């Protein structure tokens, strides 16, 4: 007889002895705290959203209003800010929809893809913020450089200030890269701890069907 059939025969015949839990035991379990990764994903994702929304509203409002003397640029910045809120609302909507679709009664593969999809929404929001931050930074730089040269006008002054400005730019660039580094590390950790097993199992399921 084949090995697996031997195993099956034994499995079926064997009296799998387990401590029999009473209804009282089970009642107590119903309302205890869950240690599901879905719960953790929700908490972490909400914190991420809050943090990013908080940061983006900080730098978009205060620093930029000061940057430009031109009305049009100020107006443009206002519009971008409002659009940004719209984008945030869309992301939150998709996140909520994806989170709600996570179901333990779906197939194993479907459940995994639902969870990964939900995380992807947050990840995309982070990317969006990084890109927006990068673009805003470049934009602010251009505006600042243009306006200061308009005001001063003198070649001498411009030379002096260029040195300082370049220093500032380099410093802020380094800071920006450090931020990126911190983000990257954070995500590696997050995926490493929380989702490593899920990814591994999901890849295996995908491989079976290739």
């Amino acid at each position, binding site marked *: 007889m*084949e*090995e*697996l059939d*031997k*195993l*099956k025969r*034994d*499995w*079926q*015949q*064997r009296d*799998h002895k*387990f401590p*029999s*839990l*009473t*209804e009282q035991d*089970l*009642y107590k*379990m*119903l309302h*205890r705290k*869950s*240690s*599901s*990764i*879905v719960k*953790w994903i929700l908490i972490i994702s909400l914190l991420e959203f809050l943090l990013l929304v908080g940061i983006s509203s900080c730098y978009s409002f205060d620093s930029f209003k000061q940057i430009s003397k031109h009305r049009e640029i100020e107006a443009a910045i206002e519009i971008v800010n409002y659009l940004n809120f719209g984008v945030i609302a869309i992301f939150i909507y998709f996140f909520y929809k994806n989170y709600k679709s996570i*179901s*333990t*009664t*779906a*197939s*194993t*593969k*479907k*459940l*995994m893809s639902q*969870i990964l999809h939900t995380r992807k929404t947050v990840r995309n929001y982070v990317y969006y913020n990084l890109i927006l931050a990068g673009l805003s930074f470049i934009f602010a730089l251009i505006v600042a450089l243009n306006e200061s040269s308009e005001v001063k006008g003198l070649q001498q002054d411009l030379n002096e200030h260029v040195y300082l400005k370049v220093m500032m730019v380099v410093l802020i660039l380094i800071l920006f890269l450090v931020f990126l580094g911190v983000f990257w590390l954070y995500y590696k950790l997050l995926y490493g701890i929380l989702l490593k*097993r*899920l990814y591994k*199992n999901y890849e*295996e*399921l995908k491989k*079976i*069907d290739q």
Partner: protein
Amino acid sequence: MSKELEELFVQQLRANQNIVHKICRLYTRDQEAHNDLFQEITIQLWKAFPQFRGDSKFSTWAYRVALNTAITLYRKSTKMATVAFEANWHLPQEDYNFEEEEQLKRLYEAFYTLSDIEKALVFLYLEDKDYAEISETLGISEVNARVRMNRIKGKLKKLINP
């Protein structure tokens, strides 16, 4: 209303608890983790119970939720077994045949070393589920479920007869 639902759920779960126990034993290495996972599966089953329409059997539905919880949702890492947990499996049956018993022991140990997904596949097979149900539960095609099963059979053969 909810009290009645709770009662109904607990009754069903108590009657079918062995399914959950078997899965816990499969995916944990000591009694504490076993109890922990049982707890988590109970919570997940209860969460999903209101949507359980009864158009399938409670047991069939429970297999899915319990496996999903053990494989995907359960968060706590399993500690190293302080006692050789597998030894608990191999209580000598009637008509004790040493060679057969040894082979069975090795089979169970091999079963234990399979990946999360392969364990689920073999477990459902041992529980006498057909390939249609196995493939539906895991989310793979029936053809490929058989292919993978054949590969596992080969793996087991090699492990038993080195």
